């Protein structure tokens, strides 16, 4: 096997991913600059014009990159927005975890508590929680509180529901073992239910991270003067498409970083699992 083939096989995942991303970027750039329009003009004639799009519609990788450079390193305007959004997001996510986990665990353990809160969880889960935004703004205005509240609403559901499922699907054989050694409720919870629930909780955390992001952006678009979401909204209304893309990509990057962190934690904490991936 040649060294080229060898290299490819060992880094297959990174290679394939990178190639696809590069091809997409090149295609995108070409759309704005008219490469494909020019190239296919001899063949398609007039209709080749369709293959070039205005920069206010699609921008281009190079335009976005230079806007990003400006916003990050020249004017530094984006850092304030990032901090603003991060504050709301961090508080909202933390609150969602602190509320969601005990709520879900209790619902899983105490049947009657589950019956009591089921209607609310189901209702909340079935609706797009952002529909509550107008109500929230009426209650707490458009400040930090409103943004935190909407993020909590969005993020707490997957956490609570998964925590409940985690408790309910604890292996009954393990509970039997603990009982046979005379373990009381608290010990049972600490040594069997909680460790058993950890994979569920981490998976829920990944979901909550994504949904929380929705809360950040929608909350800010709806009623905030600063933050990434607000910046995207304002730039969009001024047709500054390159700035919009910078905002979107910033959020994407943040989300990916957070999820990667959770996955690293998962790998460390779940060393006891038999590997399943091929």
């Amino acid at each position, binding site marked *: 096997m040649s060294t080229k083939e060898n290299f490819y096989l060992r880094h297959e995942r990174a290679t394939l991913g990178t190639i696809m991303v590069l091809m997409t970027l090149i295609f995108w750039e070409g759309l704005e600059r008219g490469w494909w329009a020019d190239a296919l003009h001899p063949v398609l004639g007039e209709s080749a014009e369709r293959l070039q799009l205005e920069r206010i519609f699609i921008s281009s990788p190079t335009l976005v990159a230079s806007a990003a450079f400006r916003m990050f390193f020249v004017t530094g305007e984006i850092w304030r927005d990032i901090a603003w959004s991060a504050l709301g997001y961090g508080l909202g996510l933390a609150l969602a975890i602190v509320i969601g986990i005990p709520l879900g665990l209790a619902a899983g353990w105490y049947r009657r508590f589950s019956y009591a809160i089921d209607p609310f969880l189901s209702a909340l889960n079935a609706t797009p929680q952002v529909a509550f935004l107008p109500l929230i703004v009426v209650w707490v205005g458009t400040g930090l509180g409103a943004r935190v509240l909407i993020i909590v609403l969005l993020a707490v559901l997957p956490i609570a529901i998964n925590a409940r499922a985690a408790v309910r699907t604890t*292996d009954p*054989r393990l509970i039997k*073992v603990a009982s046979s050694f*005379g373990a009381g409720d608290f010990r049972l919870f600490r040594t069997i239910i909680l460790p058993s629930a950890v994979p569920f909780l981490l998976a829920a955390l990944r979901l909550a991270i994504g949904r929380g992001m929705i809360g950040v952006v929608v909350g800010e678009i709806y009623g905030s003067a600063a933050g990434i979401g607000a910046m995207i909204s304002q730039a969009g209304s001024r047709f500054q498409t390159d700035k919009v893309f910078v905002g979107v990509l910033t959020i994407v990057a943040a989300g990916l970083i957070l999820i990667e962190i959770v996955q690293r934690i998962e790998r460390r904490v779940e060393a006891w699992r038999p590997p399943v991936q091929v």
Partner: protein
Amino acid sequence: MTPKLEAQDIRLDYFQPRTNTRLTALAGVNLQVMDGEFVSIVGPSGCGKTTFLSVVDGLIAASAGRILVEGKVVTRPGPDRAVVFQDASLLPWRTVLGNVVYGLECVGIGKREAKTRASHFIDMVGLAGFENHYPYELSGGMQQRVNLARALVMDPKILLMDEPFASLDAQTREAMQEELLHIWAKAGKTVLFVTHQIDEAIYLSDRVVVFSGRPGKVKEIITVGIERPRALGLKRDARFHAIEDRIWSLIDDDTDRSRHA
């Protein structure tokens, strides 16, 4: 001499809400196990052997009757009895060592002492060197050995075993039977062993208790009377076959009856 374990007229009734019927699982079981004895329970499927074991351990409350350990009545699980279930049920997120110390943790033994005791028994069951392995890395037989060590480390007065080798393949099963006898000789415990396999029961035990079909009662108790130590080759001995035939006919009786009932 006080029996190590005594069951006095144990009855167990179930109420089935779905069919609105009362089911009798155990209809007055009387049994005595002396100190250091190895006693097996066999019987037709569904006769209540496992249920009886759960009652002895205190996991299920009997509807009537008493369980006595060294002459004292017991009603809930306790450190004086330890169970080895058919399913190893090891905590998958703990290592072998972490699993073996679990019972000790539950009764409040300190970490260091628990670790020392656990190492001793991990060695006794032949898993020295595997202390830091996770359950998924072990074979079925090895997992059952961890299960056994976990029970033995509690230093129980009575070891209850519920078809512990049922999920192992035939060869591993035979090997484990022989090993169990070695370990039992070293540990000197009193054992109550439930199994479906008659040859296993005879090979391992001093006495074999034959349960009747549901509702469960003691039909007959057979003394094996073959000297120890016992080699696996014993299973082809004539005396062994005689006892096997006897037990089979006892069980067949009940299986036939329940089939034609």
